[in-house]
């Protein structure tokens, strides 16, 4: 890292996106910043395990709070690890199976920093950013329940 530390890039949008295009752009930015290690995470809409078929997913969010929550989470990651740039992109609205839902990317001089920061971003984003998923299947419509395992995952990062 050449010491340049940029503001986290936060995107909240209904439009589909191409994870590859996002990574290309992020890689160019990371290279300029002197980073040598980049980690990305991409979440796709999956079919529901079991008998029912997912028609589509709807994601509701809390405009205003969403952006500030994602910015706080990204800034916390940049405080804990030497990562820059950092990107969080999350869609809301309607999305079909196999479409990308969200993506995070981190860049660092050190691979462990890039991995840990991306892992941290995902754990916090799952349980602390105001998004709610609803699944519309052949059998009906249901809000996705939060998993205890996601809440539990946050404990990994407590700094005691």
């Amino acid at each position, binding site marked *: 890292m050449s010491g340049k530390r940029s503001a986290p890039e936060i995107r909240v949008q209904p439009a589909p996106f191409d994870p590859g295009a996002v990574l290309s752009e992020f890689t160019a930015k990371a290279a300029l910043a002197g980073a040598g290690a980049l980690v990305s995470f991409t979440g796709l809409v999956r079919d529901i395990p079991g008998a029912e078929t997912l028609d589509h997913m709807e994601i509701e969010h809390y405009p205003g709070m969403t952006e500030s929550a994602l910015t706080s989470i990204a800034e916390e990651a940049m405080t804990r690890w030497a990562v820059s740039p950092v990107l969080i992109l999350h869609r809301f609205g309607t999305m079909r199976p196999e479409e990308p839902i969200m993506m995070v990317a981190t860049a660092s001089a050190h691979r462990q920093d890039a991995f840990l920061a991306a892992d941290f971003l995902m754990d916090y984003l799952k349980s602390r950013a*105001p998004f*709610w998923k609803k699944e519309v299947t052949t059998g009906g419509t249901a809000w996705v*329940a*939060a998993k205890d395992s996601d809440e539990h995952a946050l404990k990994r990062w407590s700094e005691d």
Partner: protein
Amino acid sequence: MDVLYFAWVRERIGVPKERVQTSAATVQELVAELRGREERYALAFADLDALRVAVDQELSEFDASLAGVREVAFFPPMTGG
């Protein structure tokens, strides 16, 4: 103050947002007031363990003060990512 509801809380209450005149000092007191209004509120707020609250767009606890607060939001645990 503005009170916002998201996900199934919004569906149970039937509106995404409403203006509430209240003298409640804490979120907990606001919840008690809303519960007393109508059945749909009582249902939505039946189990506080299943709810989260944001005060002026920051995640908060139910004992948080409402002094000077402009916006309170109630919703289920988040499921992003």
